[in-house]
C-alpha cells in the first residue's frame, strides 16, 4: 500500500511538471495549428531568465522576503513572453499560418536552433544555479521518505494553470472567441473576430506557459545549454497521448505518463525509458487522434 502511494505521489509530481511544460505546446497547436518545435528553447529561456532574475533578487536583499522569489519567477516567465512573442509571432510565424503544417514544423525547428545559440550568446555556457526557492518551503516527511515541499508547490501550480486555462477558454467571452477560432478560423473572421489578435494572444500564452515551466524547474536543476531538448520530446509524447490541441488531454496525458514512469522506476526500472512510448503506442492503437480529440469531418 505504501509503495502504491509512493508511486502515486512521485507520478503526480512528475506529471504536474510534465503538464506545465506541455500545456503551452498544445495550446499553440490548438489555436495556431503550428507544432512549435521551439517550445523547448522557450522553456530554457524561462529557466535562464529566472536564474538571472532570482539571483538579482537575492543579491539585492531579497533574503528579507525570500517568498518574494516565487513572484520573481512568474515575472521572469512573463518577461520572456513579452519579449519573444512580438518578434516570433508578428515577425515570423504569421507568414506561415496558411501554409502546410510541415512548413510550420521546419520554421520552428529553425527558430529552435537559433534560440539555442541566442541563449548561449546571452547567458554563456557556464551553468547557472538558483536553488534558494527550492529549499524555502522545507521538507515533508513521509515514512522513510522526505519530499521537498517545493515539489507539491509544482503540483499546485499545475492545478492552477490547468484550471485557469480551462476557465478562460470555457467561462469567458474572450475564451469563447478563441474556441471559435479553433473550431473555424475562416467563419470566425467572417463574423468579425480579429483572428490575428487571437493568434498573438494564444502564442503569447503558449510562450508564457513554456517559460513558466522553465521558471518552476530552474531551482531544481543546473540551468545549462541544452536543457530544452529533452523537454520537447516528453512534451510531444504527452500532447500526442492527450490529443493535439486539447488542454484536458495534456492534463490526463501528463498524469498517465507520470504515474507509468514512477511505477516502472519503482517496480521495473529497466523499462523506464520505454514506458512513456509504450503508453503513447497503446493510446494511439485505440485512439489514433489521442484521448481527447474527436474525429473531425474534413472540409473539401
Amino acid at each position, binding site marked *: 500500500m505504501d509503495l502504491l502511494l509512493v508511486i502515486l*505521489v512521485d507520478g503526480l509530481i512528475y506529471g504536474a511538471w510534465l503538464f506545465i511544460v506541455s500545456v503551452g505546446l498544445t495550446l499553440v497547436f490548438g489555436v495556431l495549428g503550428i507544432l512549435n518545435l521551439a517550445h523547448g528553447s522557450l522553456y530554457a529561456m524561462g529557466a535562464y531568465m529566472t536564474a538571472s532574475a532570482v539571483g538579482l533578487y537575492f543579491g539585492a536583499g531579497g533574503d528579507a522576503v525570500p517568498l518574494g522569489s516565487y513572484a520573481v519567477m512568474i515575472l521572469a516567465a512573463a518577461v520572456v513572453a513579452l519579449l519573444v512573442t512580438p518578434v516570433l509571432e508578428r515577425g515570423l510565424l504569421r507568414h506561415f499560418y496558411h501554409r502546410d503544417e510541415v512548413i510550420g514544423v521546419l520554421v520552428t525547428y529553425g527558430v529552435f536552433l537559433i534560440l539555442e545559440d541566442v541563449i548561449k550568446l546571452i547567458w554563456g*555556457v557556464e551553468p547557472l*544555479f538558483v536553488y534558494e526557492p527550492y529549499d524555502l518551503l522545507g521538507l515533508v516527511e513521509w515514512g522513510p521518505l522526505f519530499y521537498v515541499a517545493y515539489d507539491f508547490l509544482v503540483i499546485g501550480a499545475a492545478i492552477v494553470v490547468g484550471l485557469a486555462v480551462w476557465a478562460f477558454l470555457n467561462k469567458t467571452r474572450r475564451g469563447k472567441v478563441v474556441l471559435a477560432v479553433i473550431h473555424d478560423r475562416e467563419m470566425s473572421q467572417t463574423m468579425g473576430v480579429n483572428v490575428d489578435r487571437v493568434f498573438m494572444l494564444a502564442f503569447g500564452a503558449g510562450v508564457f506557459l513554456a517559460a513558466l515551466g522553465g521558471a518552476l524547474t530552474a531551482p531544481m536543476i543546473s540551468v545549462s545549454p541544452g536543457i530544452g531538448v529533452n523537454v520537447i520530446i516528453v512534451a510531444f509524447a504527452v500532447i500526442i497521448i492527450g490529443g493535439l490541441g486539447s488542454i484536458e488531454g495534456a492534463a490526463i496525458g501528463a498524469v498517465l505518463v507520470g504515474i507509468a514512469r514512477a511505477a516502472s522506476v519503482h517496480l521495473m526500472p529497466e523499462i523506464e525509458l520505454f514506458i512513456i512510448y509504450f503508453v503513447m503506442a497503446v493510446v494511439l492503437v485505440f485512439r489514433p487522434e489521442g484521448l481527447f480529440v474527436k474525429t473531425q469531418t474534413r472540409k473539401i
Partner: protein
Amino acid sequence: MTFRLGLLAKTLASSALALGIAGAAQAESFKVGIVTFLSGGAAESFGVPAWNGGKLLVEKLNKGEMPAPYDQVGFGGLTIEPVVIDEAGGATKQVQEFRNLVQRENVDAVLGYVSSGDCLAVPPVAEELKAFLILYDCGTPRVFEEASYNYVFRTAAHAAMDNISLAKYMTSRGINVGSFAGVNQDYAWGQDSWADFVASMGHLQPSAEQKTALFPKIFAGQYGTEISAVMREKPDVLHSSLWGGDLQAFMLQATARGLHKRMQVALAAGDHVIPQLGQKMPDGIILGARGMNGLAAKAKGGPLIDALWDEYEAAYGTFPVQAPFRMWQGLLGLKSAVEKAMAANGGKKPSAEELAAAMKGLTWEAPSGTITMALGGGHQAIQPNAIGTTKWDEAAGKMTLVDIEYYGAECVNPPDGVKAVEWIKAGFPGAKC
C-alpha cells in the same frame, strides 16, 4: 695557416648550419588538431575546462615556461599551433571533421575526443589516413580491447579503474557495505561503470547485497522518482557515475531530500561539479576524478602542479578539475613523443610513423602522475588514481578533499592483454598495490 683557415671555415659553416636549422625549427610549427566539446551537454563539464587548460599549457610551452623536463620551447623547438574543433554533432560529423583536419588543415597530429562514441568511430579513419591520433579523454575500454591500431593512442586510463578504486576505497576505509544501489545514465558509460563497480564489490565485499540499479536517460534532469526509489530501498551505499548537469541536478534534488544523510554516496567521477555546487555538495561524499586529478593532485603537489594550478585559477576563476588534467597529460605525452622522435631522426619534424614508434610504450610525467602506455600493445595508458571524501573548509570558504587514498596505476588497471571486466571477475590477479 691553411689548416687554421680551413678549421675556421668549417666552424663557420657548421655554426651557420646549426643556426639555420635552429632558425628553420623556430619558424616551423607543429600543427595539432584539438577536438573537444565547445557546445552541448559535455562542454561545460569537460570540453571547455579541458581546452582552457590546454590553451594555458600551449602558451606556456611556446614560451618555454614549463619546468623540466618540459622546458624546451614548444614541441622540440617547433611552435605548437592548435586548430580547435567543436566535438558536438555526433560520430558521423566527427569522422568528417577528422578527415578535414588531416587532409585540408594538414595537421601533424590530432588530440581529441571526450565521447566514447567518437573514440570508437574515428580510429579506423586515422588508420586509413595513416594519421597520428591521441584520444585524450574518453573512457570506454573497448577502443583497444576490441581492436588494435598503429597510429592511435589513448593517453588517459580507461574507466574501469574509477569504479575499482571506489570499491577498494570503501573496503580500505572500513566502510562495511551491507547493501548498495546505483543511479547511472542509460548508455555505455553508466552501464559499464555500474558493471565494474558491482564486479569489484563482488570480490572486495562479497556479502554486500546488490539493490536497485536505476538507469535514467542521459540529460534527464528530473530525479525525484529515482531518489524516492533509492530512499525506500535504504541501501548503505549509493553508487553513481552521473556527470555534468545531470550530476548537479541529482545532487541538488537528493541533498534537499536528505539522501546523503541516510546512505553513503559514492561518485565515480564527481570532482568536476564541485566548483559549480560549492556548499551544495555536502560533506562526506566519496568521490573520484578519473585519475589523480583536481583536488587530489593538488594535495599531492609537485613542480608541474605548481606551474599550472595557480595560473589556471587566476585565468578562469576556478580550480582545474579532471578535464584539464587529461588535456595536460595528452599534450605532455605528445610533446614527449615528438621530442623522442626528433632525437632519433636528427631533429626533423617527425612523421606519423616516427611519432607512433616514439609513443608506443612511452612513459612520461604529468600533473596527474606518471603515465605509462602499458596496455593495448603500448597504445593505451595507465595512470594512478585517487579517491577522497568531501569536506567544506569553513575558514578558506572552499571545498576540500580529505582522507585521500592514492592507488598506483598497476593496482587499479589490468595487465596488458586482459580485459578489465575479466580481470575484476578473476579477483585482480597480478595487481601491484
